[in-house]
């Protein structure tokens, strides 16, 4: 009876395939929700809906497989997995952001795997590089991309601002929302011309006045009267989304997984565009990678199903279905052309993802050094924006944290 309830059925043939080839059983999939997302029933439903597109396809070819989906804030993922691993009850599949997956791997909470080169050939190489462990194994595979874009209220802004100057022009009257998190502000490094300096500093190049000046300019922009008069800074995306949904903001940087929440409140007034360029060049948004990885407690049968699910997740048909139907994320496959799609949302996502490729080098270094999750960096930015420290001091502190550990001052 327990076998039956747990999803196993001792039949000889399943859906025309010999039993040994057909997948049957149950797996547990744990989906981590980004720290930017509020953990409530609507967000949970949104995350489950995104995954449902993939699950529907998987079940259609493996009807004897039952998938139990659980959701959890990514901030709790390490502790929960540590506890559940010790009980033998950890999930078979974990879906989370790339940085989170790396943190889980450091605690050996996920199970790295090797994959045939053919399966990896068309995956986003930047993301793959981030997930490669150096011994031929990958801690997981990229399954979707969430580029940073601009969300705006089309009732207030009929046309999206394409440059920072347009955004801040007195005529636009846009009420701007900005997060104080470095990961969410880094798009403006490119627009303000500080991207190359930041990349050079993060690469360990000797510090010169020429490298330092653009960083100071970027910081000064954050405190400029033009921006300060129009922008609302919030400690988290959650507060910005609330203000935007309530109509108190007209423009804010956002990501695909936040569209549903905004759409529920703004309806068709919600529109999406690439982030604005500036005097220093195009914007340099950071694209979040959604990674799928295997758990450590699976039975051999569950491991087989989990791996099949993982491979299914990166096949072109599934990837296209997820991108087209969700209109929130992009495919992790580089050979999947979504630019021809007429949807303006997908067009904006594709354009933003292209922009993000210009700062891939910086992002790689920043992510590897854990700067996005560095509390000290965040503290410097917060204190600077609130005016507790001045630009020169903040510039020095920021540069010190961007520099590789080996070249930092003792």
């Amino acid at each position, binding site marked *: 009876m327990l076998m039956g309830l747990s999803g196993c059925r001792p039949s000889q043939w399943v859906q025309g395939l010999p039993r040994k080839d057909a997948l049957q059983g149950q*797996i*547990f999939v*744990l989906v981590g929700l980004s720290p930017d997302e509020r953990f409530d029933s609507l967000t949970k439903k949104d995350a489950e809906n995104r995954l449902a597109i993939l699950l529907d396809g998987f079940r259609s070819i493996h009807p004897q497989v*039952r998938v139990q989906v659980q959701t959890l804030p990514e901030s709790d993922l390490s502790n929960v997995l540590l*506890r*559940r691993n*010790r*009980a033998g*009850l950890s999930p078979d599949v974990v879906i989370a952001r790339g940085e989170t997956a790396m943190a889980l791997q450091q605690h050996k909470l996920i199970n790295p795997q090797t994959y045939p080169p053919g399966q990896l050939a068309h995956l986003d190489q930047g993301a793959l590089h981030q997930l490669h462990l150096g011994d031929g194994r990958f801690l997981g595979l990229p399954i979707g991309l969430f580029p940073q874009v601009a969300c705006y209220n089309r009732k207030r802004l009929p046309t999206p601002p394409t440059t920072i100057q347009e955004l801040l022009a007195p005529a636009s009257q846009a009420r701007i929302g900005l997060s104080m998190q470095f990961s969410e502000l880094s798009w403006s490094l490119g627009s303000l011309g500080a991207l190359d300096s930041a990349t050079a500093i993060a690469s360990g190049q000797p510090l010169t006045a020429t490298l330092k000046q653009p960083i100071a300019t970027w910081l000064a922009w954050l405190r400029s009267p033009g921006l300060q008069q129009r922008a609302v800074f919030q400690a988290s995306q959650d507060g910005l989304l609330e203000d935007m949904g309530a109509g108190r903001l007209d423009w804010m940087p956002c990501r695909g997984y936040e569209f549903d929440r905004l759409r529920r409140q703004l309806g068709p007034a919600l529109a999406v565009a690439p982030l604005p360029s500036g005097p220093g060049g195009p914007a340099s948004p950071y694209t979040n990678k959604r990674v799928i990885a295997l758990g450590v407690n699976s039975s051999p*049968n569950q491991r087989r199903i989990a791996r099949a699910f993982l491979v299914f997740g990166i096949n072109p048909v599934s990837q296209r279905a997820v991108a087209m139907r969700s209109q929130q994320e992009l495919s992790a496959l580089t050979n999947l052309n979504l630019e021809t799609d007429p949807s303006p949302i997908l067009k904006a996502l594709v354009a933003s993802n292209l922009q993000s490729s210009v700062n891939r080098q910086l992002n790689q270094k920043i992510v590897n050094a854990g700067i996005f999750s560095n509390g000290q960096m965040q503290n410097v930015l917060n204190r600077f924006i609130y005016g507790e420290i001045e630009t020169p001091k903040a510039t020095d502190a920021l540069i010190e944290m961007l520099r590789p550990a080996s070249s930092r001052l003792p």
Partner: protein
Amino acid sequence: MKELFQEVVGWLGYLQRGAVVSQLLLILIAVTSLGFVQRRWPVAGRTFWVRRWVQLLTLGSLGFGLAVAGYPFRLILDLVVFLGGWYGLDGLHHFFVKSLHRSELGQLEIQVLRPSYLVFGLMTLLRSLDSPEDMALISVGHFLGSDINVGDLVMAFSVGYLALVASGPPSKLLARFIQHLLLSGEGTMKATALVIRYLLMAMGLLWSVHRLGVHSTALLAVAGGLSLGIGFGIKEIASDFISGVWILFEGSVRPGEKLSIDGEACEVRYQNLRATTLWRECDNAELVIPNRTFFSNTTITYTRGDPFRRCEVRVPVPPDLNPGEIMVLMEKSASSIDGVLRDPPPRTLLLKIGDATSSVSSIYALRFMINDPINQPEICSAVQAAIWQILSAKGLASLSSDPVPQIVDLRVTEIAGSQTTAPNQ
């Protein structure tokens, strides 16, 4: 609800894992074998505790063995911790047994501590099987236009349970604290505890109802409907309820107070919003009296102002005896009885001078104060017996054959005594 059921049934999928099954089997073997030993060779007392320790150590060793071998072990460890805590509650029982009344301790243990610990244990298990935060968001249906999820339901039930059932001990604790601060009496403390408890219950229930999505407008609508019902059918219950609240705040009848009901002294035992339970000493009966009785009838209380009650015993004595000597002897005999207050001292009055020629006795009245109104009949009896003894010892025991002991309830007296609570007009 279907989603919740599927989620729970889905946990059976973990049974596909050898590591889980092996932990469960080890637990099963350890628990059943120790249970078998206990049934076969039952023991109690210290040996019983030793067996519990053996049980915990055995399970702990199994978990440790699995951990050393690199296998998952947490299920066994969680069980050891849970059982340790459960047995520890017995220890807590021994700790509190001196400071709490037996019935209070029983309530605290059965209604609060053990259920809370059980919930804690279930949550620990749930944390290993699933994400409680995630499960809390599973929808279980709609109620008055609001979406209800598992988290709302569990929280509303838990807070409602704690407010209704488990608010007693904390209310008493808080009332005792207030009593220490204000140096108030035991009756005030009990009334305060009751008021605090009802406040907690009301707040808990309102919070629970609000958590389930019933907003103030809906509550007002329900209250409107109820008021109609009250007008037609349940006005007496409503009257009891309002009287109960009024009496509590007025403080005219409180737990611990001594009242006179139908001429019999009674003590207020419990008071709830519908009725008050009194204990009648003479036949050890409990009277459940609707609260509106106290609201609309005269209530005689002996303890509202102070606990003193004045009693009077009338003694007929042959008229030829010296009144001065008789009065001194009667007062002396009353003073020797436990329960009779020395201050103010007992006083004897000569109410009527007898007539020796026509064998009419002189009537003396002995008046004395007691501070235990409930035991008034026993004290009066002892006083009369003492009077007889002392007069008999002096050779003056030729009491009249018609003694008329009388307990006088002095409602209007200069000396502190009982008070009368008039009905509210």
